[in-house]
């Protein structure tokens, strides 16, 4: 970390845990949070007594169907009788949770933080998609009967037009990520598929087909973050948080250039500046860009400045982003392969960097030596970018 920001202490990730990601879990949100939190503590060799503060993240309460969902699952997340906050920036929450945990520690307020994200998408019937109806403007947009996929279809079409990308170029992301997920023990949608499978899956909202989209999932993920002094006591291989960034773009998503994610670029610049990174396309060894849809990974790779605008589809085709490539992206399998319990999916991405940077990712370990990784998520009204840079 460059001394361009004053912190009381450097911050490290020292433990991570993850539940299975599945379409419908028996466990309550509280039980899922407990499972992930316990695993994260155990992996750091700590117990809850060693934790000063707790940060919880979940996306809209309406998915779990419990208002004040953060408070509801606080005892599972270990948040009772200690300083606890819940943070929320929609889909960006997953990466915002470790960012919030970072400032808890960097400020000197807490020495150790348990950061837990949970999402249970299965309670809402007939489909959790119904929850998204309330993000639309009730006067101008809702009378058209929109759903969330409309946004992605419009954005994907714009990206294809601007960059000259074809459906089959974009489908490669789904092929890569679902195959990467075959090595992930928590994965819900791991598969060996072909570009033809994606193109032949049913068209939902053109140009989006079923296999372009991540699944609906239940799950939880957790991290333990600690100050430098604590981290060096806890482990020989702490993974340092080198930079964090977050940005909110304008609320009217269709009033901006949809072909390029400005919200990611601004957040990434903030994080890179803090990490002292000037040429991210060279200095980042492994990336976990947010991939709820396959084109979104390409979009976000460009926003993270890991490729020039419109260059990502070409590099993808050349194998640049494969697990054995020059800059592996979503080696975990991403949301497309592992699953998408919204907030937990973002923490899963940060956990993957943690394992990659400790060379603990097993079958998923990328081929090249790794020193630095970046994870990113995106949310709110298609406007929030959250970015974290980790290094070993």
């Amino acid at each position, binding site marked *: 970390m460059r001394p361009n920001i004053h912190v009381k202490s450097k911050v490290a990730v020292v433990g991570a845990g993850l539940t299975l990601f599945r379409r419908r879990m028996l*466990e*309550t949100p509280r039980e899922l949070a*407990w499972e992930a939190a316990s695993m994260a503590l155990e992996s750091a060799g700590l117990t809850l007594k060693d934790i000063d503060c707790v940060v919880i993240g979940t996306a809209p309460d*309406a998915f779990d*169907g419990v208002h004040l969902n953060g408070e509801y699952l606080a005892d599972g997340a270990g948040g009772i009788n200690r300083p606890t906050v819940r943070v929320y920036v929609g889909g960006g929450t997953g990466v915002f949770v470790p960012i919030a945990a970072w400032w808890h520690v960097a400020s000197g307020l807490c020495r150790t933080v348990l950061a837990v994200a949970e999402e249970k998408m299965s*309670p809402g*019937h*007939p489909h*959790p998609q*119904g929850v998204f109806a309330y993000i639309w403007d009730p006067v101008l947009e809702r009378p058209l009967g929109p759903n969330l996929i409309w946004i992605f279809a419009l954005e994907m079409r714009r990206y294809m037009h601007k960059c000259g990308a074809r459906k089959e170029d974009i489908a490669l992301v789904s092929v890569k990520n679902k195959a990467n997920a075959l090595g992930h023990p928590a994965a819900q949608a791991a598969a060996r598929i072909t570009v033809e499978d994606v193109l032949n899956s049913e068209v939902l909202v053109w140009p989006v087909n079923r296999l372009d989209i991540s699944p609906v999932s239940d799950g939880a993920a957790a991290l333990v973050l600690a100050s430098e002094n604590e981290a060096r006591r806890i482990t020989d291989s702490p993974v340092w948080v080198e930079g964090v960034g977050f940005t909110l773009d304008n609320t009217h998503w269709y009033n901006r250039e949809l072909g390029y994610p400005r919200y990611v670029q601004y957040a990434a610049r903030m994080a890179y500046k803090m990490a002292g990174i000037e040429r991210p396309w060279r200095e980042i060894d492994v990336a976990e860009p947010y991939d709820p849809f396959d084109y979104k990974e390409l979009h976000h790779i460009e926003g993270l400045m890991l490729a020039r605008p419109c260059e990502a589809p070409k590099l993808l085709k050349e194998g640049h982003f494969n697990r054995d490539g020059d800059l592996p992206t979503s080696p975990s399998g991403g949301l497309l392969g592992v699953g998408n319990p919204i907030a937990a999916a973002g923490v899963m991405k940060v956990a993957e960097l943690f394992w990659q940077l400790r060379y603990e990712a097993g079958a998923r370990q990328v081929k090249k030596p790794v020193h630095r990784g970046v994870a990113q998520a995106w949310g709110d009204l298609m406007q929030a970018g959250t970015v974290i840079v980790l290094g070993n």
Partner: protein
Amino acid sequence: MSWWKENVASRIRHYPGKMEVEKYVYTPGVHGLEQAKALKEGKILGAKCGDTIYVPPLTLCPDHKPGELVEVRGPWRVVTYTIIAETMDGRRLEKPEVIAVVKPDDAEGGLIHRVEADQVYIGMEVEPVFKPEAERKGTIDDILYFKPK
């Protein structure tokens, strides 16, 4: 009548909206499943954490470990109570309903439930009355009410 009980929507300029999630389906969870089975058998469970039993049997003990499920036998006592005179939709109840926090002597915590008694007071000893076995569904409604012991 209060303003919200009238049909204001027909008189004001408005945009109609509809809840698209029609219902929620909550899974019971690991401990919740056991509790549901016990209610069907006419038992109330608690979670044993060390020497203390907690009711209801939420998954976690204060030390962040799952507790051991055990039956709570009572006797139960009224901790506090209220009397419902009017419902949400403004209907006066002919027979006011008593809602109480009841706590078993052998456990911490307690339940909120109906109490049917001519007279209620704090500290009153009560016991659960279950539905007939064939009608039980494994929900908290399997307990009809608590009655004086």
